């Protein structure tokens, strides 16, 4: 088992990482880049809590080795706010009470931001399917959906 040194680009900044090959992107973000906003839940691709955006696409950072993100643009929850100004989705989470314990929140934020950037035309129903990708054990999801719709209003469904 080798340890390799490589660079990760996260939120526009470059980090030198020396890590064993088996280290996942999620662990490298937390332990080697010091970006502990990304939370790891199940570590086998079920809960979605560790979602980050890699080259514009939301992915689960526990299902990717850090080495595989070499050369890619990675975005984490730390990159959402502009200084003291929260990202509109972060503010919407506060306004809609879309978090209680907060453990799943970074994953939901990155999932929603990434999905709406990747698919700006998605409908409210598509968005509900996207939200079903991640687990939240506190809120029951309704407030998360309200926050997402407040930050990214969807056109009303066409009348039958």
């Amino acid at each position, binding site marked *: *088992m*080798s340890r*390799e040194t490589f660079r990760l680009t996260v939120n526009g900044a470059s980090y030198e990482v020396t890590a*064993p*090959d*088996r280290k*996942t992107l999620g*662990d490298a973000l937390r332990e080697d880049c010091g970006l502990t906003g990304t939370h790891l839940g199940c*570590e*086998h*691709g*079920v809960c*979605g809590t560790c*979602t980050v955006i890699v080259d514009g*696409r*939301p*992915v*689960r950072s*526990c*299902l*990717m*080795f850090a*080495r*595989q993100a070499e050369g890619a643009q990675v975005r984490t929850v730390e990159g959402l706010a502009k200084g003291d100004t929260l990202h509109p989705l972060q503010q919407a989470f506060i306004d809609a009470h879309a978090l209680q314990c907060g453990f799943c929140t970074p994953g939901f934020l990155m*999932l929603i931001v990434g*999905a709406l950037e990747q698919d700006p035309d998605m409908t409210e129903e598509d968005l509900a*399917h*996207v939200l*079903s*990708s991640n687990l939240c054990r506190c809120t029951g999801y309704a407030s998360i959906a309200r926050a997402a719709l407040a930050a990214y209003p969807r056109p009303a469904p066409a009348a039958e």
Partner: protein
Amino acid sequence: MKLPAFDYACPRTLEEATALLAEACGDAKVIAGGQSLLPFMAFRLAAPGLLVDLRKIAGLTGIEVGDEEIRLGAMVRWRDILDSAALAHALPLLPAAIGHVAHYQIRNRGTLGGSLAHADPASEFPCIAVLCGASVDVVGAGGRRTLPAGDLIAGPMETTLGDDEIIVAVRFPRWPEGRRWAFDEFALRHGDLAIAAVAACYDMDGPHIANARVAVMGATDTPQRVPEAEDALNGRAPGDDTFGTAAEAASAAIEPTEDLHAGAAYRRALVGTLLRRGLRASCTRQREAAE
């Protein structure tokens, strides 16, 4: 769970990759999207000594819709299939089925080659490949070969691939205009593993069904065609009676698996219900003529 330790190689050519696999004598795994392999490693269901990453090898991506066939590179991701306007037109069944694959983030990374090599009986892509009679191009240390998708799948999580072989592409025969199709799946949540799913396609010869193909997945230990249901469709007019007979035939013919999610009797009933429902919907789903 942290993953077991392994050596990692990221070759730039297929020759290097197959040589590495051959050297490892079965103690290596190919990694493409990693969306099945990493969970398997996390659970210690797999602990390969070497991972050979395909991400730097050129020529494994791309969707080419030709006159005779549709070629999909092994590193084509689910997302690429869902985004392809050409595929939506040429092989509409495929994106319809792939929409059921796992969740949003997984579809952004998972690849069709990985899905075939993993051979999960609840995976959509192998089922569509078997239904459509797709061919799989494989490269090994000793050269290339092509085999039917049905011959690649040997059992649940089991393929006939050699230790040194890598799937490089899958080729689907082109569909005639007007071919009708069906896909329906049952899972606890959309994106969870299928407890049962059915896929079908057929042509219309005047008022009658011709060239019917029916396949089942999730309910059986491999994705497989169901000739009994195909016989019940061919030569008959589409409609509730025909579809009901075909659904009953499929239900009776399969040997359903049992696990903690569902017993055999339930899966048998599900297959009948899904096929009847899917075939009814097929009357309004067909491959349209080019504009």
